[in-house]
């Protein structure tokens, strides 16, 4: 949107949610389209947008949105400042990228919620077993109470995770649609064009138009492509020319996507834990370490598989297989 709130660009998911086409929304404000009310819009314009600066270009806002044909619903919107006062093109691209990363907040939450259930399972089971055993063997009441308190706290964490996961799912609009893979790849390339150019990484696709549409949440496929492409671009040193290729093939009822680059590959020592949460080879402050973990969750939840062919010193190829149906 521009600073008057007129829409310049909207993605497919947004258009679907609000029930309009791209030409219909361009140049109009969300109020014109009946998407948000006057009061909410005024709040955005007068309270939220002025808070965005080049130092703090991002904000998360909970807002009431109206959808065509159904009632209002709350969404968590990520607001990103795209143009600085000078309209610097380089900054524009960087902001776009940041906005893309923040829009994956919902993605992050769902993945985080899932990862937390692993250690929580251990804590909960261990405490419950210990309490059961101590009840059988006999022990001071105080000790049993300590364990019970622990168990109650675990249940509280589990409930919190459940709520957080459901909320995050809701706000990233979980509608599944027939997603065109080439379109998502091109969106990713557009988004990363500038940083890829700087890093001297040529972004390419191969054979994606031959692939059938896949039924899934479009924002999740976007997140998958973005993570893998970003990793390659960030790994490149910017000195020599490199490439990042997204190639597709249809094998029986499975769609196979290869994400291949020559940006150096992964150090063998890092390889076993590469999909683990908080495993990152990036410098501190750059990246959450959850990118590949999120990618793996998205792929697995869709019933697919992800693996890596590593060529340390040369590059890496991620292979994602997704069932067609």
């Amino acid at each position, binding site marked *: 949107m521009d600073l008057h709130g007129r829409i310049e660009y909207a993605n497919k998911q947004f258009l679907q949610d609000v029930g309009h086409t791209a030409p219909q929304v361009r140049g109009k404000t969300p109020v014109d389209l009946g998407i948000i009310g006057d009061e909410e819009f005024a709040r955005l314009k007068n309270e939220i947008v002025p808070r965005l600066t080049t130092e703090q270009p991002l904000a998360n806002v909970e807002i009431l949105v109206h959808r065509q044909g159904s009632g209002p619903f709350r969404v968590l919107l990520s607001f990103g400042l795209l143009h600085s006062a000078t309209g610097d093109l380089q900054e524009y691209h960087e902001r776009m990228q940041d906005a893309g990363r923040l829009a994956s907040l919902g993605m992050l939450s769902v993945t985080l919620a899932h990862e937390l259930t692993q250690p929580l399972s251990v804590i909960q*089971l261990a405490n419950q077993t210990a309490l059961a055993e101590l009840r059988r063997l006999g022990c001071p009441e105080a000790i049993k109470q300590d364990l019970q308190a622990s168990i109650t706290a675990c249940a509280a964490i589990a409930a919190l995770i459940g709520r957080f996961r459901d909320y995050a799912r809701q706000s990233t609009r979980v509608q599944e649609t027939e997603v065109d893979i080439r379109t998502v790849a091109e969106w990713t390339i557009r988004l990363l064009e500038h940083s890829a150019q700087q890093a001297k990484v040529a972004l390419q696709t191969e054979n994606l138009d031959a692939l059938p549409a896949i039924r899934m949440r479009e924002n999740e496929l976007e997140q998958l492509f973005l993570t893998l492409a970003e990793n390659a671009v960030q790994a490149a040193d910017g000195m020599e020319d490199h490439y990042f290729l997204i190639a597709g093939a249809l094998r029986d009822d499975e769609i196979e996507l290869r994400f291949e680059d020559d940006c150096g590959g992964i150090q063998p020592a890092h390889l076993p834990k590469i999909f683990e949460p908080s495993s990152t080879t990036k410098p501190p402050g750059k990246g959450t370490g959850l990118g590949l973990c999120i990618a793996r969750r998205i792929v697995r939840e869709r019933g697919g598989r992800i693996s890596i062919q590593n060529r340390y010193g040369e590059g890496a190829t991620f292979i994602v297989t997704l069932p067609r*149906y």
Partner: protein
Amino acid sequence: MGPQEAHVFFVDDEPGIRMAAQRALETSGMHVRVFSSGEDCLAGLLEQTCDVLITDLRMEGMDGMSLLHAVKSRFPWISVIVISGYGSIPVAVAAMKTGAAEFLEKPLDRQELLSAVSRALANATRVGPSLQGGLSDAEAQVLRHIIDGRTSREIAHALNRSIRTVESHRHSVMHKFGARNVAQLVQRAAAIGLSKGFACSHPSGTSHKDPDAQNTDTAAL
């Protein structure tokens, strides 16, 4: 069958969870074997009795769904409980359709785990030593068709095999079940819960693929 004599297999690729689950189940009197992968579990099934099998759905290598499918095919009398951290309905539905007896969500709760095992045990049947090694994929297929009432000729046509091959498999299945004729085979199969239409479809909806086949030539991490 009560929990005291039950043999439980637990599969999860995280050691912390394996240990915590083993402790939780053993303190209730069950015999527990833990495995870090589906492949190891299938190897274990050839050696030891298993009444209930519990597996995480997300694992490296052979994932839980593939293991579920392999077990329901080759050891159909074993009750399988699946555990998932995703909490999504499509995943749960797919698991139940593939033959899971129970579906548990993470984080794991001791009482829920024990209740699920209890329910699964109520429906489990201990089979004789002749079935200890389970059925081969081919035998499983032939058995399904026999139970559905097909003749050897029809089965041969359906599986694209010779009648002699089909009869050979039928013979070995009958031997494993200790059945003197087809009628007895069907009866004994029904006694352990295998009746018409017990064949579960592969999650992808296509015909059963060998879950042991590796699709990539490099290890998935």
